């Protein structure tokens, strides 16, 4: 360990460059990973927040954001299925929101029956469960964009009267169009659904009932719709946004590119550091250092660089992610991501040292006698 550390600290400039390279790579991976994770999470946020065990969705629909009408009677049919405790409706669609300045903004409006887990609904009070009419809830990350400076604020939705009555958080939109929440009936009206139409049904299973059994029963009763568990629908939505639209793919590619760029930077620096000490490695071999000892020195150099760089990269990530939250409200860094990226960085350094190790092991020790 001492030789590895001393070799690195002996050439401080190269060591600093190596650490900066690894720190940058680590930062890039964590940041891109946070964007990707946040995007995945945001793409199923509404579904995850619903608290419903089962969803009845129009056939082939992949996500809440691109729904289509279902017959209203499906609700009554679902209520008749054994094991169904409650059925709540969700209507959603893109609407035109007129700001106080007169400018219009396209927003994604969602209106659900109350009692759906954490899905925001404008209530008179939590105890009564009574829904405020013509009332909108706006996420704090979109308040400026929608010119919500004071509450309540009179606005128009699809040329119909509405009031912004509250600010919520945790529902920043990844679509570009802000999420705006309202009551179910108002949503039906604003979106323009017919009297006999709804869009999504959220099913609560009765205590003691088997979710899978209820799902199969619902599928039999509603063959024109898809009945999926919350996690299935969430995955379907994530898959749609991440894979089918290419948006998540771009983020994932950027994350992978971060890894590759990091790997190249780290490889080059570790290789250069090793090559700089090649004569010393030859001397080590000549004076009888076993191959594993030599391998160990190169690997230790790589891991010391990796650990130092990853730590600095990690420390740089948190303030920058906090700063980014002002602009990208859905960016999210789960606790395992930095830890995972440190492991990845160390693996990356170990991988980068492999080429150097091969070079070092191949050195002919006889070269030590050549001055």
């Amino acid at each position, binding site marked *: 360990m001492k030789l590895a550390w001393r070799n690195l600290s*002996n050439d401080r400039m190269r060591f600093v460059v190596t650490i900066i390279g690894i720190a940058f790579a680590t930062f890039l991976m964590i940041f891109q990973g946070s964007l990707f994770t946040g995007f995945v999470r945001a793409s199923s946020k509404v579904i995850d927040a619903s608290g419903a065990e089962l969803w009845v969705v129009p056939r082939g629909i992949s996500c809440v954001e691109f729904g289509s009408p279902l017959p209203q009677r499906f609700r009554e049919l679902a209520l008749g299925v054994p094991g169904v405790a409650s059925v709540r409706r969700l209507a959603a669609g893109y609407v035109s929101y007129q700001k106080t300045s007169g400018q219009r903004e396209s927003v994604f409006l969602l209106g659900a029956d109350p009692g759906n887990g954490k899905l925001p609904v404008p209530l008179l009070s939590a105890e009564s469960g009574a829904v405020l009419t013509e009332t909108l809830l706006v996420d704090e990350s979109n308040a400026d964009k929608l010119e919500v400076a004071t509450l309540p604020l009179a606005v128009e939705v699809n040329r119909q009267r509405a009031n912004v009555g509250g600010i919520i958080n945790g529902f920043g939109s990844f679509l570009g169009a802000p999420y705006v929440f309202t009551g179910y009936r108002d949503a039906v009206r604003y979106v323009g659904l017919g009297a006999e139409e709804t869009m999504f049904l959220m099913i609560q299973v009765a205590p003691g009932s088997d979710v899978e059994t209820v799902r199969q029963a619902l599928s039999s009763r509603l063959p024109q719709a898809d009945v999926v568990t919350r996690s299935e629908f969430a995955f379907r939505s994530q898959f749609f946004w991440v894979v089918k639209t290419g948006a998540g793919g771009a983020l994932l590619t950027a994350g992978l590119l971060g890894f590759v760029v990091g790997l190249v930077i780290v490889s080059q620096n570790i290789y250069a550091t090793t090559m700089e000490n090649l004569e*010393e490695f030859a001397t080590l*071999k*000549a004076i*009888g250092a*076993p191959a594993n000892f030599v391998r160990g020195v190169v690997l230790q150099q790589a891991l010391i660089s990796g650990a130092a760089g990853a730590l600095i990269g990690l420390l740089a990530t948190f303030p920058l992610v906090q700063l980014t939250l002002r602009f990208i409200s859905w960016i999210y860094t789960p606790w395992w991501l930095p830890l995972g990226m440190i492991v990845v960085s160390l693996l990356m350094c170990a991988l980068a040292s492999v080429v150097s190790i091969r070079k070092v092991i191949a050195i002919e*020790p*006889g070269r030590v*006698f050549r*001055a």
Partner: protein
Amino acid sequence: MLNTAELKTSRTTGPLVELVKKSFTGRLQSPIAQQEMLEVQNVSVEYGTGRAMAYALEDVSVAFSPGKLTLLMGPSGSGKTTLLSVLGCLVTPNRGSVRVLGNDIAGWSESAKTELRREKIGYVFQAFRLFRALTAMENILLAMELSGRTGRQAREAAEAALLAVGLESKGHLLPKEMSGGEKQRVAIARALINDPPIILADEPTASLDSKSGNQVAELLLGLAEQQNRLVVVVSHDNRWLPLCHRKVVLQNGCLIGDDVTRNTTGKLGTGRLVRPSGALAA
């Protein structure tokens, strides 16, 4: 094992050779001690292939005994360094056999040869080959670590080795902070720390001034005469001639001379440094 206290006492009363004599004791009590310890027979080393093939060594046979300082001479490109590399188990010859301490090492695995180098052979290089990021003390400790010796006892032994080469106060210095002579003495201490019976030195005085060169020569001679080690020195430098017990001369990869010389004077000669282009002037 070196004894620091004894060395400190001796340091104030005797010359460097005496210190070496007292420090690295207990050499060569084994039956092989007076036999030929290092031997090559009909060794050839080739470079290149086809028409470009050339001999670095061609059918060389020579044996070395303990207690003698052998000078390996010859013009540039004569094969001296190659022979030293073969003797040091650093290069495997294309033909011929190499016997070290009575063992034919043909067919030995690389790890076995590595162990042999570590435990039985000490190397002294023209360019010192110290680890530049390590202090003098750490350079010696590293060689001990390779032999599995660590901890306080290893540190004490390293301190004693530095004392033996007159660098007891410079153990904390990096190679770049030392003179050429000091670096070479550290390299010798490193070569000796694992008590090897064979010392191979490549131009050990070439990078040194006269005074430092004398100190190093004195050290190497002491190792041969006082401690019965086998010392082979490669050098162009004719000043080694009065010092060595035997002179082996190579030219164009062939052995052309092998002379037992004389009683040594214990000092480098005063003649000018000669870099012969043909036959070596005696």
